[in-house]
């Protein structure tokens, strides 16, 4: 029993010496710790770089708007290539053989002839 008490006393003495250990952090350790501090996430983190495609997409209004534009463009091309009957007459009028434009009237030609003859 006495020996156990003696051993406990030794341990308590060593514990007390350990509790008195209070090292001061060296400048080197402080520097290492501060070097590990990440750049503050909110205040100074730069905005992520965006590609040219992303910027164009933003200007056009995002993927939703662009998908509408693509659909409208495809529909327009298709109507041009294979127009439905209801618009066929108009396309024939614009692009068919029936278009004829007379730039000079016969009178004007004769008048020119008169000019040369005269």
């Amino acid at each position, binding site marked *: 029993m006495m020996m156990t008490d003696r051993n406990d006393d030794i341990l308590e003495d060593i514990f007390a010496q*350990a509790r008195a250990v209070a*090292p001061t952090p060296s400048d080197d*350790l*402080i520097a*290492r710790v501060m070097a590990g501090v990440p750049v*503050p996430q909110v*205040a100074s983190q730069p905005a992520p770089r965006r590609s040219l495609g992303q910027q164009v997409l933003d200007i056009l209004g995002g993927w939703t708007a662009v998908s509408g534009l693509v659909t409208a463009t495809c529909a327009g091309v298709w109507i041009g290539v294979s127009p439905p009957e209801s618009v066929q007459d108009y396309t024939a009028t614009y692009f068919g053989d029936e278009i004829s434009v007379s730039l000079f009237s016969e009178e004007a030609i004769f008048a020119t002839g008169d000019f040369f003859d005269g």
Partner: protein
Amino acid sequence: MNAMPDLFAGAPDEALLIAFANGDAQAAQALTERLLPRVLAQATRMLAIQAEAEEVAQEAMIRLWKQAPDWRQGEAQVSTWLYRVVSNLCTDILRKRRGGVSLDQIAEPTDGAPSVVQQMQTNARMQALSDALAALPERQAQAVSLRHLEGLSNPEIAEIMDTNVRSVESLTARGKRALAAIMAGRKAELGYDDD
């Protein structure tokens, strides 16, 4: 450490951590000045080797910076969280060290000055204590060190170790008995024969 004007005097550690997470870089410096000495002291008491203790302290602070953005306000105290991290990091090192370091590796004093002899003896005792902790089951080593080296209460230790007070009491009692037995076997070389 060049102490900066304490802009955060009186603010709890958690407030500083949240300020840091919100982009206040000065909060990181204030946290370092406030917490690093405590973290380093805990690691030194458990490990007794300065280089290892500094390594642990640095790693613990890095983990704190990483944790800051995800810190759950009001769930735990920063000090409790750090005690747990340091304790776990130290037991990792003690596990690797088992059987590695002995008193034979500690140099003898080169002159007879009492202060040098006394310092060497203290160093030897701290190293012996650390080696004895390494010989304990890890949970016992953690409980004993938190109780008898850090002076924490059993409820605080229970929170740090994520267990209940009764379990802490048991771990501490068994750990202390085992430590006493180990240290008793080395009392002559630690200078306790003539006390």
